[in-house]
């Protein structure tokens, strides 16, 4: 891959209900923060990629609502529908294709205006599955059970993810749910879909994130030291849950392996010093870590209990507080990238990591994943 870098990031605060903000208001705020971060003017941006989802926004052509606010009115522009990590991937290709040097990528959603059970039910097969009433939470509960059964991961270990991430959020001014809780608090919280308690689930959130990508020619021209894109890969598993081993995520393993290879990582467990991943539910943090080969099978829960993924340790996982502390769908993956960038630059508690990993996902129970490897050095 030709060299490219992330040269600016910006985001809104993640909140449960941004009553006074439209989609455009949120995009405007995030974009201006990213421009300010990069030391750029809107005229320095060659083209724009927005990321949104018509179901979550309740609007057809949902990108219409944010294009102008993202500075796209007189520029080439496109829209990815899916997680922000995928939007950023397309933005990266546009900076490498020879057509544009700098690409602004945004991603937004307002969970407060959405009914997530209906929206995620619409992702199931309309004839065979929708009528069962499945949604993201119930399907993920099945996956959590399958993962726990195969690996021996316990309910308490899941709860520890929640304790850690909500605690980490206390150092993140953008997080929605920052608080100190105990394993008992998680286990005593309302049962949403067995084995997932309320505190095992990410909240409903509003928010927008913006990231500026530049090719090598322009990467060093602005205010910030670039964070280099070392590897990116994405992959989709089968559609029907019954066609997959739900306790596994083959597509995540494949995407991670390819991203490591692109980045030239031979021992990713040692070389990666920071992970921001898509923990929509507690079990996902443990499962995604194992499926990315960042710890052995069935080990993630035990390592977590020993503090191996703590924010101040050698291998921080979701030091920002992750999705459990704020989950604006679609934006969530782009926020993971932004959080890794901030920490590799050293402007947030970064534990001195040189290489970081960001991960996002599309579809039900992690059908399709996108893995980014970012590096402090060229």
């Amino acid at each position, binding site marked *: 891959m030709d060299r490219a870098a992330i040269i600016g990031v910006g985001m809104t605060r993640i909140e449960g209900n941004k009553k006074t903000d439209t989609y455009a208001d949120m995009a405007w705020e995030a974009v201006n923060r990213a421009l300010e971060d990069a030391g750029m003017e809107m005229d320095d941006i060659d083209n724009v990629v927005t990321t949104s989802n018509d179901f979550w926004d309740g609007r057809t052509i949902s990108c219409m609502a944010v294009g102008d606010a993202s500075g796209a009115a007189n520029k080439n522009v*496109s829209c990815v529908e899916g997680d922000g990590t995928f939007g950023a991937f397309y933005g*990266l290709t546009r900076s*490498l294709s020879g057509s544009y040097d700098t690409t602004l990528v945004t991603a937004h959603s307002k969970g407060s205006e959405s009914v997530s059970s209906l929206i995620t039910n619409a992702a199931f097969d309309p004839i065979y599955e929708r009528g069962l009433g499945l949604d993201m939470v119930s399907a993920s509960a099945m996956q959590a059970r399958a993962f726990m059964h195969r690996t021996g991961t316990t309910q308490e270990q899941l709860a520890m993810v929640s304790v850690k991430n909500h605690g980490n959020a206390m150092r993140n001014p953008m997080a929605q749910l920052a608080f100190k809780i105990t394993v008992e608090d998680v286990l005593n919280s309302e049962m949403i879909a067995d084995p997932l308690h309320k505190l095992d689930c990410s909240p409903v959130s509003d928010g927008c994130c913006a990231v500026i990508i530049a090719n090598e020619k322009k990467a060093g021209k602005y205010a910030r030291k670039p964070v280099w894109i070392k590897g990116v890969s994405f992959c*989709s598993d089968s559609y029907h849950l019954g066609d997959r081993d739900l306790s596994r995520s083959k597509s995540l393993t494949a995407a991670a392996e390819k991203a490591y290879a692109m980045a030239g990582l031979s021992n990713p467990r040692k070389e990666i010093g920071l992970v921001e991943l898509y923990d929509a539910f507690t079990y996902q943090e443990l499962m995604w870590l194992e499926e990315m080969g960042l710890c052995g099978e069935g080990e993630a829960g035990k390592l977590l209990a020993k503090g191996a993924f703590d924010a101040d340790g050698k291998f921080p996982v979701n030091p920002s507080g992750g999705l459990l502390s704020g989950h604006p769908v679609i934006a969530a993956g782009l926020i993971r990238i932004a959080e890794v960038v901030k920490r590799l630059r050293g402007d947030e508690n970064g534990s001195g990591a040189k290489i970081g990993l960001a991960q996002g996902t599309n579809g039900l129970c992690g*059908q399709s994943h996108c893995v980014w490897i970012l590096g402090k050095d060229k």
Partner: protein
Amino acid sequence: MAKRVAIIGTGQTHHKSHRPDVNGQELINEAVKRALQDADLTMKDIDAVVIGNMDHFEGINYVDCWSVDGSGAVMKPIIKLTTGGTTGCTIAIGGYHIVASGLFDRVLVIGWEKNSESDTTGAITTAFDPVWDRLVFAGAISGLAAEAQAYMARYGATDRDGARVSVRDRKHATNNPYAQLRKEVTLEEVLASPMLADPIHLLDVCPRTDGACAIIMASEDLAVKSANKPDWIWATANRHPYSYLGDADYGRLTSMSESSKELYKKVGIREPRKEIDVIELYQPYSFAGLIWIEDMGIVGHGEGPEYVWGGNTDMGGELPINPSGGVISCNPIGATGLIRCAEAAMQVMGKAEGRQVPDVKHAISTGFGGCWWTDMILHGSEKPEY
């Protein structure tokens, strides 16, 4: 350094108003199989997939994930792009950038729609601002009628001028075995057909269609080794401005004039009328065939009708437009822009059979949608000069 990119295969379904015999995934599969066959490849040769449609027509969320059973993208990278009516052209532009980036060598691009399952106008209406636009002006045909009225008032065009475009495209469609509506009509029949939104008659507009289209794009090395003569992508450009519906300059398509200028500048085209050999225009209703060729710089403002009446845009004319029969003969919305791209590619590759324009060196395909949005691609028979 950018890599050159070419289209090396195309495939589409036989488009119909209703395909109750297949579900969406099967519809997609038909187009994908034909594109692979055209390029003499199998799914194993495909590195990544780009897909697009408009969610609210079929009511399926995460279409990229749902579609893999039909597209063959299981355990491959798949990404969804969607921009409304422009989607088909947007995904082709997406395929171009993804291959040009050097990250993938062969990319399959799929556009599809099963409009028979949709409340098309209902779904389109939700695109617009819920407070200011949605209740008064939203949907497709009202905006198009406003454009046509403004154009007629500004330049003195008549509904007969619009009907002439309809007669042309419906005649061209008889040469295209994939088109949905393949019946010649007369000027009188167009003008006598039911009035939908003044001045737009039923025979002036596109139908609702079930259909899919797929193209395969490849990097330079693989394109030259392809079984087909490659269709080289010379340049792409688009504009998607939107504030409120009242902000548009009705009677002109600003996004088209800005995209065209950028496209011509990139490749050094000075006289598009002479240098372009064929256009596949995303023309959802007949009057656009007058107005938008002006914004494209083919003729001056107000000169569209005279140029069209002179037979210049008919098959055999100076600059044939829509040899396929265009959008008023067939409109599976998420696929429509990609069909324009595929048809333009077929013209360059010399594979357009009964609708072939002789000796095509440069073709343009376009997408239209959203709120007066334009996407454009310039195709060429020779490798681009950069």
